[in-house]
């Protein structure tokens, strides 16, 4: 069974601060996705990373896939209140089409 561990589980910061969320596993994933979910909504796909060592940027968000494709990180620069939400990582392994979800990081950005 593939497992994804996310940390931290909860994060409360002030607007303007930087933060990093981690997603770790002992398993290798063929691709890894990051989602953000706001209250009352479904998860929204932010990015997919597929190559070991890959770095993708989405405005103030930087996503990195580990060289061994077992871990990933999400870094937010100068957080804004609109970044508040549940951040979920999800991995897909080889021929298995199913996604394995981490438990999520609940981020609160205070004004």
């Amino acid at each position, binding site marked *: 069974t593939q497992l994804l561990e996310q940390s931290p589980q909860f994060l409360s910061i002030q607007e303007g601060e930087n933060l990093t969320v981690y997603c770790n596993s002992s398993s290798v994933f063929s691709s890894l996705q990051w989602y953000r979910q706001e209250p009352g909504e479904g998860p929204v796909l932010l990015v997919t990373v597929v190559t070991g060592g890959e770095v993708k940027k989405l405005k103030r968000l930087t996503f990195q896939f580990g060289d061994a494709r077992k871990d990933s990180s999400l870094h937010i620069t100068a957080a804004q209140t609109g970044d508040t939400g549940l951040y979920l990582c999800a991995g897909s392994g080889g021929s298995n089409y199913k*996604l394995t979800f981490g438990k999520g990081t609940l981020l609160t950005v205070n004004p």
Partner: protein
Amino acid sequence: SAVISQKPSRDICQRGTSLTIQCQVDSQVTMMFWYRQQPGQSLTLIATANQGSEATYESGFVIDKFPISRPNLTFSTLTVSNMSPEDSSIYLCSVEPAGNEQFFGPGTRLTVL
């Protein structure tokens, strides 16, 4: 990507009753998934619904409790049967148009009294 709608968006139901949740996609997709998200938790896959075949259920979920229909490539339903308060959750459908990227509907928030 894909645009997905779900009905109802929320419901409050009595113990012992059943609720059918609808999921509509704006394009034809082969693979549709149903997830449960309990309060404060991550997503747990209930089943995979492919058109023209029986749904495939994950460990801990059975067809009698969560019957699924997939009559065509743009629509699916999930029924939560004989509900109990433990079934109170958000139920989400998702689709995988291509590759390993899944796109989610807005969810159905179910409360069972």
